[in-house]
């Protein structure tokens, strides 16, 4: 029993064990099946990926024979798998392939992929540009057994590239065949490229100018360094037409118009410059002016006969005419005279614009101008029933009396013409330190704001038909403007439509005259002082400055706004500027910078006054400016002015010329450019003035009384602080080389009077003076 039990127990255990074993085996089997299934799945997945990837894929052996190729590649090329397998891959590629060894040599651990652009040929003979990426296949021993390659169809990329190339080609061809010159510049003003038109214009090949500074093409006398020069060109030409004197390779100069536009490339800001040679247009302008002048003269001859005949008839010299005949003859005479007036106006304007109208400047009492003008229009005013109110004046201006009368008569006639019968036309004259202003006020219908500027243009009147109705030529105001501008003045109109207009002109009252060769030193000092500009909009401050500075013997001009201050600086020679920070809405730094960028004002002493310091000491000193806080300490201000003037002093030009008329012309020309000028008419005087204060530049005539040019140079050479003064010998004589040698100081140039143009003289003076200022040679 015990035995049977034991056997039964053992059997049960055995069955249990077997059952566990079976279960275990079943588990193993099921896991194996699962794994197999997973493997199969994964293989299908990879095969699908391999075959249907959006990219061609093949493998070759070391002989270049295709071992595997995916469906995408087959589809791309249009072959079946059988047609490709076992074939050398080169059979399908147009270009010659690299050998496997060569590829193996190029592949490194760091760069396991190597790519080529190739062209595959489809079964139907179509080339497909592709990008191939090769990766080496190695066996367990690291031996190379073949190459695995991905094949990417790059037709669309190629098409885009081709389109870009075509478009670039088209652009290039447009640029190359443009009539305008084109250059590209980098931010530093260095030339990057130019088109053939520009090459031709300047006589350089593009590659000769690559990385050269733009200034090689421009003939600008300027003391600016490259950076400043670039900045000034950009400022002047960016987005607008600017005029320059350009310089060819052969040094010939010609006028151009330049417009810069800006673009950006990854390397930074670039500029493209459009250049137009305007020599021809200038020439056409000149011919046109000449033509106008000739035609006008030619017209006068027949008009003389016509006018003469009509006047004789109308005047009854040939017997009394029947009433109707007298009427039409008077009509013809009136219109002939109008035609003559028109021709005279056109001629005047042409002469004014070409600078041929002579001006005879002198100090003239405004009273005379007012009186003469009044007399000239009195009869006309009576006839029109207008009362004229003309004041007396004690002011004096420096100008051409006849021309000023011409302007005022014109303004008065207009005022009378456009005033209602029975009304008044009044004149007022005011004097400020800088200007004498004359205002002519009418009670006419006024001028619409939009016309205010326009009416000073030629043939412009407020309404078409005015001219016929009122008998004007339409040139009067244009002539007035030109005359006033030749005086360094301004003309304008204040008007409200319906209530009347006030035409005004301002003529500088700064008297710069030369009466005799014999002048005392004091006279000269007083005359050569240019006014101080007060930029302040507060009338009290203006008065304060005026009183204080006049007491000190300075003359002052006022800029009542930043714009006006700039305008005055542009037009007048100013010795020093005092600027109230209140006036400068923009930050002072901008205004100062703007000022300093202009070579004309590079050395203008500037004193800023204001409530608080807005500029750092460094900015101030960089810009040669002094800041004085308000309230202003009188002595501090005067000291600052003395310092400023002393610093600016010495950078002037000493003109030595015994022909006072020529001297006056030269002085005027230089003053216009803001250059301070002292003058001497004898050798002795020149030496004395140079001793008093060494000039920045000496302009010397050779033939002089009381010591000629040679004596002057000899005397200055003896003094160490004077022998380096830059010298411009400006003479009518032909000098021998030996004589030239004797006439040498610092930087010395020679200019022959009859040969040099005004512009050449001017630009040479500016260049020499700039050099002098930079080198500090006047110190």
């Amino acid at each position, binding site marked *: 029993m015990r035995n049977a039990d034991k056997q039964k127990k053992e059997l049960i255990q055995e069955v249990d064990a077997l059952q566990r074993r079976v279960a275990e085996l079943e588990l193993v089997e099921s896991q194996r099946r699962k794994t197999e299934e997973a493997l199969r799945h994964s293989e299908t997945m990879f095969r699908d990926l391999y075959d249907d990837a959006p990219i061609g894929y093949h493998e070759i052996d070391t002989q270049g024979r295709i071992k595997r190729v995916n469906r995408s590649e087959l589809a791309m090329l249009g072959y079946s798998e059988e047609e490709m397998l076992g074939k050398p891959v080169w059979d399908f590629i147009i270009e010659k392939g690299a050998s496997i060894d060569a590829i193996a040599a190029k592949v490194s651990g760091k760069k396991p992929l190597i790519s080529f652009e190739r062209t595959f040929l489809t079964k139907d003979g179509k080339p497909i540009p592709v990008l191939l990426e090769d990766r080496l296949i190695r066996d367990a021993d690291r031996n190379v057994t073949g190459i695995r390659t991905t094949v990417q169809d790059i037709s669309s990329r190629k098409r885009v590239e081709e389109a870009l190339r075509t478009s670039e080609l088209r652009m290039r061809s447009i640029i190359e065949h443009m009539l305008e010159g084109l250059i590209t510049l980098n931010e530093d003003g260095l030339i990057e490229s130019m088109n053939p038109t520009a090459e031709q214009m300047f006589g350089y090949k593009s590659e000769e100018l690559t990385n050269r500074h733009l200034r090689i093409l421009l003939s600008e006398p300027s003391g600016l360094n490259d950076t400043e020069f670039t900045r000034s060109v950009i400022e002047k030409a960016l987005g607008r037409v600017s005029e320059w004197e350009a310089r060819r390779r052969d040094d010939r100069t010609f006028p151009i118009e330049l417009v810069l536009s800006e673009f950006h490339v990854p390397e930074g800001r670039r500029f493209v410059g459009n250049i137009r040679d305007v020599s021809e247009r200038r020439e056409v302008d000149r011919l046109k002016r000449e033509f106008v002048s000739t035609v006008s003269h030619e017209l006068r001859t027949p008009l*003389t*006969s016509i*006018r*003469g005949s009509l006047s004789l008839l109308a005047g009854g*010299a*040939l017997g009394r005419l029947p009433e109707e005949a007298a009427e039409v003859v008077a009509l013809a005479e009136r219109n002939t005279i109008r035609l003559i007036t028109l021709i005279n106006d056109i001629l005047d304007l042409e002469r004014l614009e070409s600078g*041929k109208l002579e001006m005879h400047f002198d100090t003239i009492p405004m009273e005379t101008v007012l009186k003469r003008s009044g007399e000239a229009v009195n009869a006309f005013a009576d006839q029109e029933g207008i009362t004229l109110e003309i004041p007396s004046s004690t002011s004096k201006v420096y100008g051409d009396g006849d021309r000023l009368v011409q302007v005022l008569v014109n303004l008065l006639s207009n005022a009378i013409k456009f005033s209602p019968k029975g009304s008044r036309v009044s004149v007022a004259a005011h004097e400020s330190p800088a200007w004498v202003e004359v205002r002519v006020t009418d009670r006419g219908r006024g001028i619409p704001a939009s016309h205010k500027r326009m009416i000073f243009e030629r043939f412009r009147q407020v309404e078409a038909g005015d001219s016929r109705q009122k008998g004007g030529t339409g040139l009067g105001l244009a002539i007035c403007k030109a005359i006033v501008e030749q005086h360094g003045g301004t003309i304008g109109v204040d008007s409200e439509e319906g209530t009347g207009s006030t035409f005004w002109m301002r003529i500088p009252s700064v008297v710069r005259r030369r009466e005799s060769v014999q002048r005392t030193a004091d006279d000269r000092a007083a005359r050569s002082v240019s006014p101080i500009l007060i930029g302040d909009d507060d009338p009290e401050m203006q008065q304060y400055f005026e009183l204080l500075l006049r007491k000190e013997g300075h003359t002052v001009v006022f800029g009542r706004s930043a714009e006006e201050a700039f305008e005055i600086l542009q037009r007048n020679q100013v010795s020093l500027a005092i600027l109230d920070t209140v006036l400068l809405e923009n930050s002072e730094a901008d205004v100062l910078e703007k000022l300093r960028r202009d070579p004309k004002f590079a050395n203008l002493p500037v004193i800023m006054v204001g409530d608080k310091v807005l500029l750092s000491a460094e900015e101030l000193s960089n810009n040669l400016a002094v800041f004085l806080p308000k309230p202003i300490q009188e002595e501090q201000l005067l000291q600052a002015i003395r310092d400023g003037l002393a610093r600016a002093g010495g950078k002037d030009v000493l003109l030595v010329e015994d022909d006072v008329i020529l001297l006056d012309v030269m002085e005027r020309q230089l003053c216009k450019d803001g250059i301070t000028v002292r003058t001497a008419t004898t050798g002795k005087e020149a030496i004395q003035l140079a001793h008093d204060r060494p000039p920045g530049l000496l302009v010397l005539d050779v033939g002089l009384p009381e010591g000629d040019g040679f004596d002057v140079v000899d005397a200055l050479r003896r003094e160490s602080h004077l022998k380096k003064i830059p010298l411009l010998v400006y003479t009518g004589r032909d000098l021998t080389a030996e004589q030239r040698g004797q006439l040498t100081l610092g930087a010395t140039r020679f200019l022959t009077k009859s040969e040099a143009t005004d512009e050449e003289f001017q630009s040479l003076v500016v260049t020499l003076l700039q050099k002098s200022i930079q080198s500090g040679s006047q110190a």
Partner: protein
Amino acid sequence: MKVLIIDDEEDIRRIAYLSLGKVGGMDVLDADGGSEGLRKAESEKPDVILLDMMMPKMDGRATLAALRGNPSTSKIPVIFLTAKAMRSEVEQLMQIGATGVLTKPFDPMTLASQVRSILSENGH
């Protein structure tokens, strides 16, 4: 008063003739150019010569020089009639010996009186 007008334009001569003769009551002689003018000046001894500036062949300047160079005509006052009236040109003409300058187109009704006043200003 005897006046000689030298001008190459026949119409102008005619107007001047009417203007100086009819209106001004002068005896008027005329010449169509410098050389004829010189001959008439020498033979007729006019009291004043009105001389055109721009003439072909011999212009006003040359005619004046010739008149001044001949002792028998050198003292005759010469007034220029010119369409070019820039001040410097007027001054130049005065410098080379003109007695006065009148501009074209002139007013025929006052031409004679203008001539007379120039002469009287110059003490003729």
